[in-house]
């Protein structure tokens, strides 16, 4: 069935890889991105390992506070913030720069010119991130969630982002071809959304602080929108690109893509205020945030239908392809995490989940099970195209997948169940506060176990990644590295 669909799309569009000219063009585009993309990916994988180490320390401290208790730089408050910033600004953004710009260049059918600028901007970005995280560990955190880095590195981050983002926008400006594909909408929009969020939040909270609760509103507007208007559109762009790409089928419905994109753009921006339910800000603003959070059901359902209907009938290929195994895991997680998120925004649910580990589990559900898994899948597709080599080990990919899938599963279930129990106990005035803390300890152990699994997965991924970049034997073309050895595009 998939064959007939693919065959018709080849007939309808002249832009097809059956035409060697198109293959050459794609090859030239890949080549123009090669150095910069590899640079960003190496940075992101290194940050992933650093972030994992910080995560393990923080997770262990949550139930064994004496662990590394003698080091001032490794107190829980600092390590947790350092972990968040390493993952957000180190791993996630570097991965986005590589995957997003590469997809944008391919879809715009235009080579990346003057990519030397990307090296400079990328180096600045990583230096600023390193200084920022060192600053957090040395006690110079701003103590503003998601904006912890000392304020002096933020202009450097903003500048290097501007240089990187501009390349994506320029690629779009000089695109070829009539049609603008759904992934391009998401990437282009996100390239504008992120700098807007970041500069406004820095201005209104850190540089020229607004008065009173406006700071808190801006803080959660920013923190939630980094997920919603930066990570989410980039990950959705990747899912929209790789699912049809690997399966060789068109995406199910253009109309659903349009509806999904515009409803996300319309509603997500409002949703962050649900973090302040019960707080001292005008109640209509919180209600607007709650309604927008529930409205997010619309883009989520639409995207879920669109992806599911594209994949349906090809589950074998999804399971065999490393790219799709990760990306479909991420796409399913997107549906799950978003629906749970909409429910959590309701006042009656929030009264239990607020200020508990439930929220922590939810954040990892979104950033890891959805966003990070999709980035892994994207990297599994990109690397062979950039390096003209295959992934060295299918076993390591399998280890990576199972450790990550099980690890994040344990974390999400553990923190959701533990967080709910914690919330119910905290709402009961007859229970002493310390008892609510003690009750979370077994669930915090489950988080440490999951952190260990995730770290093993990341090490397997990093081994495979660097083995591929620095191969010991010459490139062989035994076919793509698949998860059961049968022939499909990786």
């Amino acid at each position: 069935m998939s064959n007939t669909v693919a065959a018709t799309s080849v007939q309808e569009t002249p832009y097809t890889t059956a035409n060697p000219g198109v293959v050459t063009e794609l090859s030239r585009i890949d080549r123009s991105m090669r150095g910069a993309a590899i640079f960003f990916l190496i940075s992101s994988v290194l940050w992933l390992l650093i972030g994992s180490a910080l995560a393990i320390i923080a997770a262990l401290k949550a139930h064994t506070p004496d662990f590394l208790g003698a080091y001032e730089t490794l107190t829980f408050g600092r390590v947790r913030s350092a972990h968040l910033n390493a993952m957000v600004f180190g791993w996630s953004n570097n991965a986005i720069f590589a995957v997003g710009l590469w997809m944008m260049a391919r879809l715009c059918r235009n080579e990346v010119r003057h990519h030397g600028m990307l090296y400079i901007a990328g180096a600045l970005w990583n230096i600023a991130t390193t200084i920022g995280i060192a600053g957090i560990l040395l006690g110079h955190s701003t103590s503003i969630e998601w904006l912890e880095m000392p304020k002096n590195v933020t202009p450097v981050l903003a500048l290097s982002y501007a240089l990187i983002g501009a390349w994506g926008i320029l690629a779009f400006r000089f695109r070829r071809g009539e049609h603008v594909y759904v992934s391009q909408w998401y990437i282009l929009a996100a390239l504008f959304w992120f700098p807007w969020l970041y500069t406004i939040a820095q201005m209104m909270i850190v540089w020229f602080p607004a008065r009173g609760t406006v700071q808190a509103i801006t803080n959660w507007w920013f923190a939630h929108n980094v997920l919603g208007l930066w990570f989410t559109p980039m990950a959705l762009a990747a899912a929209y690109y790789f699912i049809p790409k690997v399966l060789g089928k068109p995406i199910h419905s253009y109309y659903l893509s349009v509806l999904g994109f515009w409803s996300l753009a319309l509603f997500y921006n409002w949703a962050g205020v649900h973090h302040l339910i019960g707080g001292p800000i005008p109640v209509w603003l919180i209600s607007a945030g709650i309604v927008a959070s529930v409205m997010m059901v619309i883009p989520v359902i639409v995207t879920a239908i669109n992806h599911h209907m594209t994949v349906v009938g090809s589950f074998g290929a999804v399971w065999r392809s490393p790219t799709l195994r990760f990306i479909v895991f991420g796409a399913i997680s997107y549906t799950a995490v978003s629906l749970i998120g909409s429910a959590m925004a309701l006042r009656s649910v929030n009264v239990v989940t607020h200020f508990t580990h439930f929220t922590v589990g939810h954040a990892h559900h979104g950033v890891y099970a959805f966003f990070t898994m999709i980035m892994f899948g994207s990297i599994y597709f990109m690397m062979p195209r950039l390096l003209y080599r295959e992934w060295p080990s299918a076993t390591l990919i399998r280890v990576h997948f199972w450790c990550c899938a099980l690890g994040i599963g344990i974390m999400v279930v553990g923190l959701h169940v533990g967080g709910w129990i914690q919330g119910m106990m905290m709402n009961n005035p007859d229970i002493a506060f310390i008892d609510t803390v003690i009750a979370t300890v077994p669930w915090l152990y489950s988080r440490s176990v999951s952190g260990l699994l995730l770290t093993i997965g990341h090490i397997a991924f990093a081994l495979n990644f660097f083995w591929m970049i620095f191969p010991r034997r010459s490139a062989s073309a035994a076919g793509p590295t698949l998860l059961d050895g049968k022939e499909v595009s990786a």
Partner: protein
Amino acid sequence: MSEDNPKAKHQPHPDSRESLEKAGYQDKQIQDVHAQLMREKDEPTEGFSPVPLFTLFLFAIIVFWGGVYFTKYSGDFRWDVYDPHQRGESAVAEAPAFDPIARGSRVYRNRCAQCHQAEGQGVAGVYPPLVGTEWVTGSDERLIKILLHGLEGEIVVRGNTYNGAMPAFGPGPGGLNIGDRDIGAVATFIRQAWGNNAEAISEERVFEVREAIGNRGPWDGSELLGLHPLSK
């Protein structure tokens, strides 16, 4: 599964230009090097399946719910309504009038009762009592000064000698930074509780005394009595 075979898909027509020029790169190694590209499927395209009908009903229900919810919990879009269950003009409750006795009792419990005890009886020889002594019910200025700046040195209260160190509660250096209103409230409370019966001390009076003195360390007992002698 012909589509899954990358080689079969890329055979151009035998007479085409690509085919004629292909001889140059037929070499297996070059083909192998480009295997990743050669097996690639088309760049993604979109199908045009219609939006499923049930989603329209679902979205209509969600939007309707959203409208109802937003209207119900909008607090009339006022900036000063914070409780989702309040509506309209009735929403803005009058700020409760300041009750110095209630406030003072609270401050007393949190700050003073550890030493002077719950009923103001003190601990003989250690913490002086507040009940039935002119130190409390006499000069308001003396009491305010003690509260603001603290008191050290030997004093006699109801026949017992005390030599402790009362901390400063005012905003000065080393003080616990309690505001004029709360100082006034707690002073009023101890002057009128447990059978004491002296006139209240207002926030303004505390301000007046504080401004007149400025910052200073704790008073000495005899120094203070020199300024405000006890009547007996």
